Structures are given as structure tokens and as C-alpha cells.
């Protein structure tokens, strides 16, 4: 049984169709990355999974239990096993609480008052390599990297089975970005965590994800193991994304595939293949609507795939 099974998830805000049928699964201990430009619906996917965003249609099962639209009474016990990390490291910490209160918040919410919260706070801080004297500080007194660790500590407090991480490296300097990824990798291995990571930084994906899905306008356009996608991207959009990643080497002039224009408005979804208008490889056939096709572990939504 998959840990998380998302099937045909749909979300609309009024006329704006943000998610138009997203499906993927995450196995226990697996790291799954969702990649795409801003507005592709990545964040909505994980918020919908966690019940923080509406999902009008589709199914989300967590350990076999349907949780789409489930009331909080059903969700609350599950939240022990499913933790979230948010994009803004400082902004996702309640500003008036001390770090100690913040990282022990999950125990309080889950009613585990019998725990020695001070000891737990100490344990968690040590786990994320923060000195225990941070316990009495407030979020605004932390740097981005430190706050991010607090977020990790809090997410891991209840030893969840799944972490939903929204841009875990956003706002971090490269010099500390690695620390966080190392920490996550390390914890994942030690605790057997599964993760869903959202990012637009492909370099990050390569180092943490087992599998990845590429999103465009609220749909997956390609999915596969990280190795496969990086080495053999079939969808033109994936190819463009991969090439649009300048390398820190003045001599490494990539064969860049220029992507035309910007993503279209969700209010005016193009007909046929929705990527057609920006696609450098578009063909006549692309006026038809592509279907999701799976070849082994490689899923693709393209009528003119690259080889």
C-alpha cells in the first residue's frame, strides 16, 4: 500500500481552475518532488493534501484512508503522521511564541501533555543542530537558516511518516542551503520519512528526490524517477526547465532551449496541448489534447515527445 495516493485531484477557486486532475503516489520512505513555475499549482497540491486548501474532486488517501475534504476531527489524529514545512522560514513560525513553545506545539495540539516538553525541545533542537539556548528566543531573532531548522524540528517532533515541504530552501543562502538538504537527507534515512518536496530549484531536486513530477498549469506533464527525468526528459517543458538552470561555470554554455513568453492565465487555458503556444517543439498534432500515458515508471502528457 502506498503511503500517499493522490488521484485526479481538482481544485477551483471560482472560475479559476488551479488543479485540473493531479495524480501521484508516494511510497513509504520515498521522496517525491513536484517541480514547476510559479502558478503551476504545486503549493495547492500539498495544501489540498493537508486539508488546507479545498479540493472539489478527486481522492487523497493516506495509509489507505480517504482524507480529501475530511473534517478536522478525522484529520487531527492523522496529522501526527503527516507534517508540513512552509516556504517562508521565519514567517511560518508564530511570531509571539518562543522557539521552545514553537517546536513543542505539536505535542500540545495532539494533547500529549504528559511529555516532558522541555526535554523534547532540547532533543529536537539537538537533532537539527541548534544550540539549546535558542529555546528562549523568538522567531524574529533567528536567521533564515536557523528558522528553517526550527521548522524542520517542529515538523519532525511527532516522528511523522510523511513530510510535505514547500520550497524548503527558499530564502536561504547557498552556503546554508546544503546544510538543510543534508539534514533532511540524514533525517530521512534515519527515520524512514517519506517526503513530498515542492521546488522550482532543479538542483535541489536532483539531490533529494527519488522521483519527481513536472507540473504545468495545474497538471502533471511528466513524471518519473529523478535519474530518468534528468537524463532523459521527454516533455519539451521539462527539457526547457532543465536547460534554464545557469551553471556556475562561465564556460559551460548550455544548449539552452528558450521558452517563449510566460505561462498563460488559468482563466484562459489554451486549447489542445496547453503548453503548445510556448513550446519550441510544437507540432500540428499538438492542437489535440494530450493524454497521460505511462511507460514503466515514466508518465508523460505529450503528443510530440522528445527522444
Amino acid at each position, binding site marked *: 500500500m502506498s503511503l500517499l495516493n493522490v488521484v485526479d485531484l481538482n481544485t477551483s477557486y471560482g472560475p479559476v481552475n488551479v488543479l485540473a486532475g493531479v495524480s501521484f503516489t508516494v511510497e513509504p520512505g520515498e521522496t517525491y518532488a513536484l517541480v514547476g513555475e510559479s502558478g503551476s499549482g504545486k503549493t495547492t497540491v500539498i*495544501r489540498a493534501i*493537508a*486539508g*488546507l486548501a479545498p479540493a472539489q474532486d478527486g481522492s487523497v488517501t493516506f495509509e489507505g484512508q480517504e482524507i480529501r475534504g475530511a473534517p*478536522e476531527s478525522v*484529520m*487531527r489524529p492523522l*496529522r501526527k503522521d503527516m*507534517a*508540513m514545512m*512552509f*516556504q*517562508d522560514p521565519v*514567517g*511560518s*513560525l*508564530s*511570531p*509571539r*511564541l*518562543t522557539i521552545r513553545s514553537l517546536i513543542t*506545539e*505539536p505535542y500540545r*495540539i*495532539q494533547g500529549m501533555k504528559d511529555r516532558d516538553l522541555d526535554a523534547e525541545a532540547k532533543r529536537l533542537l539537538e537533532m537539527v543542530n541548534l544550540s539549546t539556548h535558542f529555546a*528562549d528566543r523568538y522567531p*524574529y531573532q533567528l536567521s533564515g537558516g536557523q528558522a528553517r531548522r526550527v*521548522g524542520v524540528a*517542529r515538523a519532525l517532533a511527532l516522528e511523522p511518516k510523511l513530510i*510535505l515541504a514547500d520550497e524548503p530552501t527558499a530564502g536561504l543562502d547557498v552556503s546554508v542551503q546544503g546544510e538543510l538538504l543534508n539534514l533532511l537527507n540524514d533525517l530521512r534515512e534515519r527515520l524512514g520519512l517519506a517526503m513530498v518536496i515542492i521546488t522550482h530549484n532543479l538542483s535541489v531536486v536532483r539531490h533529494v528526490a527519488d522521483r519527481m513530477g513536472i507540473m504545468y498549469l495545474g497538471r502533471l506533464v511528466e513524471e518519473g524517477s529523478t535519474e530518468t527525468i534528468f537524463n532523459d526528459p521527454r516533455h519539451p517543458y521539462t527539457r526547457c526547465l532543465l536547460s534554464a538552470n545557469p551553471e556556475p561555470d562561465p564556460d559551460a554554455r548550455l544548449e539552452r532551449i528558450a521558452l517563449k513568453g510566460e505561462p498563460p492565465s488559468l482563466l484562459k487555458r489554451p486549447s489542445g496541448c496547453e503548453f503548445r503556444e510556448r513550446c519550441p517543439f510544437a507540432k500540428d498534432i499538438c492542437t489535440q489534447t494530450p493524454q497521460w500515458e505511462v511507460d514503466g515508471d515514466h508518465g508523460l502528457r505529450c503528443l510530440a515527445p522528445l527522444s
Partner: protein
Amino acid sequence: MEKSRSELGQIIVGVARDPLGLMGLIIVGVIVFCAIFAYWIVPYDPIAMDIKSRMQGPSAAHLLGTDQLGRDTFSRVIAGGQVALKVALPAVFGAMAIGLTLGMIAGYGPKWLDNLLMLFFDTIRSFPTVMFALAVVALVGPSLQTVVFVVMATSIPTYGRVARTQTLTLRNSEFILAERSMGASMARILGVHMLPNIIGVLAVLAAMDIPTVIALEAGLSFLGLGVKPPTPSWGALLKDGYSLIRQTPWLVVGGGLPIILATLGFTFLGESLRDVVDPKLRKQR
């Protein structure tokens, strides 16, 4: 708890560092001190009449003269501060508490409730205060409690709206989403996470609102709708002073000066508080 005390300490130090804030702090301190210790400070019983020495001008015996009943104006001014605070503090904090609660419910609750509460706020706001006050006073009769009620009722929408706006902003902030993702109950989210972030702004608003309330009480008293006699209130002093303005101008001074001073004090304090509390400004420092 200890942490929050030190935060309060920081705020006070911050205010005291600002010259205007310090001035505000001193004026408010004096007013509060006089109000608390009015009983020991006043040279005369503020309600004791002495018809023989009525309407006397300022003198060494009566610093601010006496009124038409021979009562010592200075003593009444001091004691009036007590009344002003008795009206202002419960009214402002009551309005703040109710406005905060309603505003947070409006901001966090379902849309229909938000609409309903906003309609309620707008309706109250749309009554001219004086008309509302008149109707209420006519309904239940004037008294300290009525004034407190009127002032409270008319200021609830202000606090409610601000609390609502803040709640709406916070509602979609990541730390609230984070709490929701952990399964925090609505009560916990509102009480533990939103409240401390909203209350600062409202407290500043409240500090700035106190003089408005004092002036409103004075206005109501001026219209003869204020506290019951013989309670010494600044508004009552002004009312008596107004009807005797050319005979006993010291009554107008006695009633008007503390109002203006209190306004200055609380406004300075409020402005300074805002600078210290407002996180946006704090970052710039």
C-alpha cells in the same frame, strides 16, 4: 509569562527614550496617580458644598476657584480624573475586548458571519454618535454606566474592523497555515497565535482612543447626558462652566485643561507606543 513581562519592560523603555513618549508617559502617569490617590490628594471634599464661598475666583485657598455650589474646583478636577478613567478605561477596554472578539470571528469565521458582523459594525458606525447616545440615555437614563456603554458601543466597530483586517491578513499567513497543518483547533489558533499579534495594534489604538472617549464623555455631559451629579467629572465641570462662562471662567479652564492635557498625554503615549510596538518600524531601527 516572565518573557512577556520583559517585553512589556522593553516597550516601556522604548517609549521613555522618545521625548514625546516620555512626556506622554509622565502626563498619563500623573493622571493615573491623581485618579488612584484622589482621595488623599484633594484639599477639599469634591462634593462638599459651601454656598457661602461659591463662585470664588482662583486663590491660595482654592487654586482653581469654586463653583456655583462653593465646591473646590481643583478638588473636583482631581477627582474628575478618576471619573474620566472610570469611564475611559472600561469603555475602551470593553470595546477593545468585544471588538477584538467580533473582529476575529468576522475575519476567521465563515463568510456569511463576516458579512453579518460587518453589517452590524457599519450600522453602528453610521449612526451619528450623539444621536445614538441621546437615544440610549433617553432609554436607560444617564449614569456612569450609560456613558460607558454608549462610548463602548460606538467604538466597538473601530476595534472590530481593525481586528478583522488584521485577522484576515494573518489568516493566510504561513504560520497560521502551519498551525492548521498541525491540527490546531480554532480556539488555539485565534487565542494563542492570532491574539498576541493583533492585540498590540489594538492596544495602541486604545491608548489613542482614550482621549477621544474622555472628550466624548465631556461632550455628553455638555449636553446634560453625562454622569449623575454630584459626581465630579470634567465634562460636568465644562457644562457648569459653559452656562456660567462669563461668571466663572475657571470652571471651563478646570474642565477643559485636564481634557486637553489627557488628550496630549495619551496621544503622545499612543504614537510613541505605535512606533515601538509596530514591527514594521521596529525592523527599521
